[in-house]
């Protein structure tokens, strides 16, 4: 039940930015003929601001992340007391892993709750037809918006629980700022992988009447295989091997290992390569699916 901590705010955040953002894209393109990078920057900033308006929800979420951080940190402490060096972590690294998990839960949207509900709703209502005719690229638009959201969640939902965790527990946080930079890069790549997965999930609504079931299964699987329930290094045998190569490990396990200094030098490059590889594969798949879906919409005449 480690995932309950993201319940309300993410999914509850209201709709509305999307259309404004698209309007902006359309307007700019009329002048320049193509949608520039700046437009996506504006969309990303909009994604950030949109979540930033919910101050009370953010405070409530921080509280919840902190409570869960405490509970899980204690259970991990009991586990590592019994088996020091379990999964290759010492006690303080294991507890740090817990707080990284709480900090990234919303950022890499391990339990979903970002843009995909809104996109599914637009597909269900048919509004998507309007979006597809707009000059801003559907996938890039939502990616920009989701990156903005993730940036807010990292700052708004991640920093404070992590700081409180560091006050209450002995965390193995690196002193080297370069490790932090490497961590942030891994988080950013994790967000892109997470986005790519959720984009595919959202597009499934073109074929399924109700995407909610798929969404539920995805976040279920995502939580488990991202390492939120337990670090993937603790998964036994074949399950562990499988979990390590699935894309969800890019969401928490890899960023956490980067911060804990498990990936350095060539190992860090490999970790990034793994994340980039999945991002490329999944984004391409999303693009293909999008073009199939577009043809479908066009054939149906919107």
């Amino acid at each position: 039940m480690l995932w309950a901590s993201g319940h309300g705010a993410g999914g509850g955040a209201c709709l509305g930015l999307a259309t404004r953002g698209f309007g902006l894209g359309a307007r700019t393109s009329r002048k320049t003929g193509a949608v520039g990078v700046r437009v996506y920057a504006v969309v990303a900033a909009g994604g950030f601001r949109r979540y930033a308006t919910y101050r009370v929800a953010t405070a409530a979420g921080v509280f919840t992340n902190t409570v869960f951080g405490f509970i899980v940190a204690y259970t991990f402490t009991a586990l590592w007391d019994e088996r020091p060096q379990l999964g290759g972590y010492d006690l303080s690294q294991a507890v740090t892993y817990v707080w990284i998990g709480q900090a990234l839960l919303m950022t890499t949207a391990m339990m979903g709750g970002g843009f995909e509900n809104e996109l599914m709703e637009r597909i269900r209502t048919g509004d998507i037809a309007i979006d597809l005719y707009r000059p801003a690229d559907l996938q890039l638009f939502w990616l920009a918006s989701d990156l903005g959201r993730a940036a807010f969640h990292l700052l708004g939902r991640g920093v404070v629980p992590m700081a409180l965790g560091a006050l209450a527990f002995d965390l193995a946080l690196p002193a080297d700022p370069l490790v932090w930079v490497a961590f942030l890069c891994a988080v950013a790549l994790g967000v892109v992988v997470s986005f790519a997965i959720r984009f595919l999930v959202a597009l499934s609504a073109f074929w399924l009447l109700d995407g909610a079931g798929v969404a539920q299964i995805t976040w279920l699987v995502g939580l488990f295989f991202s390492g939120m329930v337990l670090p993937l290094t603790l998964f036994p045998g074949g399950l562990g091997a499988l979990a390590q190569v699935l894309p969800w490990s890019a969401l928490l396990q890899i960023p956490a290992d980067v911060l804990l200094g498990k990936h350095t030098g060539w190992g860090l490059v490999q970790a990034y390569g793994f994340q980039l590889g999945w991002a490329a594969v999944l984004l391409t798949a999303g693009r293909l699916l999008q073009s199939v879906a577009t043809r479908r919409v066009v054939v149906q005449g919107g």
Partner: protein
Amino acid sequence: MAEVEAGTEAEATQATAAAGTGEAGTGGVGEKLGAVGQLRAGIRAYRMIAAMWIRSTMAYRASFAMAAFGNFAATGLDFVGILLMFSHVDALGGYTLPEVAFLYGTAGAAFGLADLVMGSMDRLGRRVRDGTLDTLLVRPVPVLAQIAADRFALRRLGRVTQGLLVLGYALVVLDIAWTPLKVLLVPVMILSGAVIFASVFVAGAAFQFWAQDASEVQNSFTYGGTTMLQYPPTVFAKDLVRGVTFVLPLAFVNWIPALYVLDLPYPLDLPSWFAFLPPVVAGVCCVPAGAAWRVGLRSYRSTGS
């Protein structure tokens, strides 16, 4: 539901007769309800609304079955986490897997029941924000019942079922020295625990009258509380255990009575009769929760937001 209505039929006819003939000012004395009457009216309304939602979800049986299974599987996931933990250790905080399963099952079933009955309460904030709470206030039944029963979803039985299955596993595997009292204590603790969690749901909803976006705070105590109660109390810091024993008495949901059943010591030095307090604690919890709800509703009605 027919039997509930029979007793109040006279009142109903009186009300409508008054409405029809225009004697509203003098009629309807029988409608002034006391606390018990209010509770009855609330339960009646709850059953009506919940029944309506069940009927409408049952129209799509396949979809319901999937959702119920999803709920079941989702809640099963954290037990898989516990199983994975126990694949590395024989005991956690001095507790074996079946003992932890006993805690997990009782906490899960109690919370599952509360979630089934009261799980919609966290939508109150949204209702305040979009103004739809007003539409509930002009109906002749208690608002609390209307909110709690809104979108009543039988699929939440998935969580109860999952908790009971784990509990069943624990009961089969554990070698408990059963006494009649212990046998009685198991269902009593689940029901009392459900009432304690329900109080938290109500208090959390009342808080949303002031902070409409704060539904997550109640998740800390409900979902967070269950997660905590699924693990042995020995795992947590003493102060935390004291907090959930004396301040927010979640420990009475399962820890204290369950450890009596299991013959295990509680980290705090409590007299053994504390194990039988859950029904009392549950009753006591309803008082501040109900008061918070009334204060919240009154505040809403005086500020309109």
